[in-house]
């Protein structure tokens, strides 16, 4: 399934899509596959597979801890592609979430080719804006991959228009100014940003950063097409006494959030 189809399906059901993030390689490569499968079975519509990076500058301590462990355990870009392949086999679209340097090092064209071959749907690039580099967008287009860029509360109208014009699949709206991590409150800025974004594009707009529970998911589902949850899932894995308990906890959270995106 493509991300567009997943968002359309959710829309047809009168709800927002649930987008779940977990990093590849935590607690192990196979462990991350298991956790993601559980997430999908419990109601996650679109999966973000995190590519662990040594300098994750818009990630808070929860995701930093997990990707740090994944890297120390030797997780490679090839491992990430293996996770993508396993996720794609579940039928849920898998997009990779990656900082730019690992993709640049792999080679934009080679990564696009190998990701497409693994059944991946696209890439979210948190530190690559569409105007930063000339290599990624053509490579992604050639292989039919979604290019998902971020818009932020601080973005000007011109930049939002430029960004959404370069997006395929969906647009990622960051709810607050800040790094990833669960928050008590998702900022008031989010609804306004979604409205400003929708004024420039027909693409679905998903809201992320800080969402951790069903109530927040429901609140966002009232005005956005998708709700992205990352740190809250990762925290379930970090706090679990053993990997099996982690998988259970992830599935519980996914089911809870899936209820949230259906309560508009």
């Amino acid at each position: 399934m493509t991300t567009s189809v997943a968002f359309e399906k959710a829309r047809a059901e009168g709800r927002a899509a649930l987008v779940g993030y977990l990093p590849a390689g935590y607690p192990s490569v196979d462990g991350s596959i298991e956790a993601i499968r559980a997430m999908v079975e419990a109601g996650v519509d679109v999966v973000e597979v995190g590519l662990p990076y040594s300098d994750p500058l818009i990630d808070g301590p929860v995701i930093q801890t997990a990707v740090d462990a994944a890297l120390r355990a030797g997780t490679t870009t090839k491992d990430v592609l293996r996770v993508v392949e396993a996720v794609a086999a579940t039928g849920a679209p898998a997009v990779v979430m990656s900082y730019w340097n690992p993709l640049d090092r792999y080679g934009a064209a080679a990564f696009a080719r190998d990701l497409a071959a693994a059944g991946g749907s696209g890439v979210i690039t948190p530190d690559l804006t569409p105007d930063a580099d000339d290599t990624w967008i053509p490579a992604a287009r050639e292989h039919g991959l979604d290019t998902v860029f971020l818009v932020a509360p601080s973005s000007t109208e011109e930049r939002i228009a430029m960004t959404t014009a370069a997006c395929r699949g969906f647009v990622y709206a960051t709810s607050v100014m800040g790094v990833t991590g669960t928050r008590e409150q998702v900022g008031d800025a989010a609804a306004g940003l979604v409205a400003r974004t929708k004024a420039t594009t027909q693409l679905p707009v998903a809201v992320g950063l800080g969402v951790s529970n069903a109530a927040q998911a429901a609140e966002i589902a009232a005005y956005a097409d998708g709700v992205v949850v990352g740190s809250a899932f990762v925290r379930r894995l970090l706090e679990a006494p053993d990997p099996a308990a982690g998988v259970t906890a992830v599935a519980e959270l996914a089911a809870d959030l899936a209820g949230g995106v259906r309560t508009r």
Partner: protein
Amino acid sequence: MDTRPDSGHVLSADRPGRFGPYGGRYVPEALIAALDELDREYAAAKQDPAFTAELDHLLTTYTGRPTPITEAARFGAEAAGGARVLLKREDLNHTGSHKINNVLGQALLTKRIGKPRVIAETGAGQHGVATATAAALMGLECVIYMGEEDTRRQALNVARMRLLGATVVPVTTGSRTLKDAINEALRDWVTNVATTNYVFGTVAGPHPFPTLVRDLQRIIGVEARQQVLDLTGKLPDAVAACVGGGSNAIGIFHAFIDDPEVALYGFEAGGDGVATGRHAATITAGSPGVLHGARSYLLQDEMGQTIESHSISAGLDYPGVGPEHAWLKDSGRATYEPVDDADAMEAFRLLCRTEGIIPAIESSHALAGARRLGERLGPEATILVNLSGRGDKDVDTAATWFGLMDDSESEGGR
């Protein structure tokens, strides 16, 4: 401030902030507005006589510029192959290094933009001390991020920053050094950008920092070029500087870029030796990629993960380097070589003993490089060395290195 137009061949005109293929802006969208604002305000400030006058006034009456050049006659004769060695005394700046040149400019910009809070990263603590100083002077709130490892080896500077009223946050992620301090500062910035300006300490990072910081450090070379001409009647044969992120090096190089007869040498931290893999010789042993918002050389593995750097010098212990240096290297205009810990410490010792000047360990890498150049170029050569900072902060490290702290002395004496 020097506002001469950029040398055309260094900055490519079609893409602002690019140095050939290097530089640019690889940052989260959330930061773009702040970087654009900084770029805009800086462009306006450059043209504003009131701004440049205020900066010049501070550089003269607060920092003590112009800094002198000192002829290091004994060092040259005894330690550098008889070459004529001239030291550009950035160590004599208020706060003890070149970092204050940049910070005063950026702090004034912060006030112009109207933000009440500044943040900065620091390695050796010199940039942190300079930022804390400017914040105290201008009434700004100040938070400094410093790797935990560096807070230990530069404890004196941690105390100085706190005395100046800054909050020092030890960073415990990753390698616990400068690279991780920058990550943490960027995380703070993305969260608090509405109230906060990031006073970046070197010529790395996203555009406009490499250009902004370079312009604010150009004064080193502008002064030195004229001082050398006045003293010797000709340009130096070589200019030597240490390279961490590259701000003191670009600062002294820039005025000489259009003088092809002047060789430019950047000396990187060779740590335990480049062959051991424990070093910070980014240009010598790294490859092009993106770190901290810019394309440049960096130490990375085959997956594009940053490799931790190692150096006895906290200020050079960084796996990246400014994009203009990457371009100067590729274009052949400047040459970069590693200097390992042992050579740097020997040069440190020699300058203490021959000139009565205790240099920063960072700057000692440039001194070691000058010794090498002196041997190569011979007694006819004049070598200008950027003595980027003084060594007070390094006394503990040096005393340990030279074994000056045996029990009997240190128990009573410390």
